[in-house]
């Protein structure tokens, strides 16, 4: 059993599991939206004193923070107990392309090690990818009122036009960076 679930999971297992997670959260009286936690954390850190957007009863959102804590534990369990190999099964084309950009053995670990290291923060590439990237994620999710879980999964499942617009936006932004920015950024 443990060996079985330790293999990389195919899309047709992961997709239905994600839908079940959303369904479970609805049944428990919550909703599926992870980026709201960033707003809640700002509120807990006292942002409500200087900005009314964060002045709400964050205690009602503790369940979602507990869910996020579960994500960290889930990642830890997968990392410690369910890893026969840390390789990511990306396509040949992706591997070849990223090698050309100077990424060492693409797919060997979960994330490109040279980029996701503390040292890389001091390089232009690392600073852009991690700090600026994080900035854009934080700002964008709140502006759009949701991220992948809130719009792409929950919103589309509820046939919401605003979520479709948001997802189209996700792709416009993502394609722009991937095709026009990353080729330069990755070789910095």
């Amino acid at each position: 059993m443990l060996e079985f679930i330790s293999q990389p999971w195919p899309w047709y297992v992961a997709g239905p599991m994600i839908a079940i997670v959303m369904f479970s959260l609805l049944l428990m009286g919550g909703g599926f939206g992870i980026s709201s936690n960033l707003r809640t954390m700002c509120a807990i850190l006292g942002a409500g004193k200087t900005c009314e957007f964060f002045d709400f009863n964050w205690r009602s959102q503790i369940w979602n923070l507990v869910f996020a804590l579960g994500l960290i534990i889930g990642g830890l369990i997968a990392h410690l107990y369910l890893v026969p190999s840390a390789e990511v099964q990306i396509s040949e084309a992706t591997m070849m392309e990223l090698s050309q950009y100077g990424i060492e053995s693409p797919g060997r670990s979960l994330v490109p090690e040279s980029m996701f290291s503390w040292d890389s923060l001091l390089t232009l590439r690392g600073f852009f990818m991690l700090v600026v990237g994080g900035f854009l994620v934080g700002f964008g999710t709140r502006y759009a009122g949701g991220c992948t879980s809130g719009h792409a999964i929950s919103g589309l499942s509820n046939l919401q036009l605003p979520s479709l617009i948001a997802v189209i936006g996700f792709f416009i932004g993502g394609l722009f960076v991937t095709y026009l920015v990353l080729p330069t950024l990755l070789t910095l």
Partner: protein
Amino acid sequence: MKLFRYLFIGIIFGITLAKAEIVSWYRIYEMFRFQSFHMYGVIGSAVVIGIIFVQIIKRTRMKSIDGEPITINPKQFSVPRYLLGGIIFGLGWAMTGACPGPMFILVGNGVSVIVVVILSALLDTYVYGLLRKKLPH
């Protein structure tokens, strides 16, 4: 006690996204380059089954396990907000290779520097709060 069930679902979700490699920067890059069906299969099948679940909830007027009616709030219609916000999020998603869920899962996976990404996202969530009234919604 109630909170434990959210913890449990979070753990299941964390394991799923880690084991299906959705937390991998490589998978997001590959998705935006259309070099693999994987991510499209994950999101597509989640949405198709999600639509069925939401329809079941609505048509049977299903109640939550605490006996409350389940309400799914419709989102208020607007174009600039979702399009501009979505584009900004997309730019960041393609750079960090992580949306908010995977950010937390990567902490558990031992990618410690992702904490910087989370702090950065937190800071700019705050900046959004400050600028909110000046932005088109």
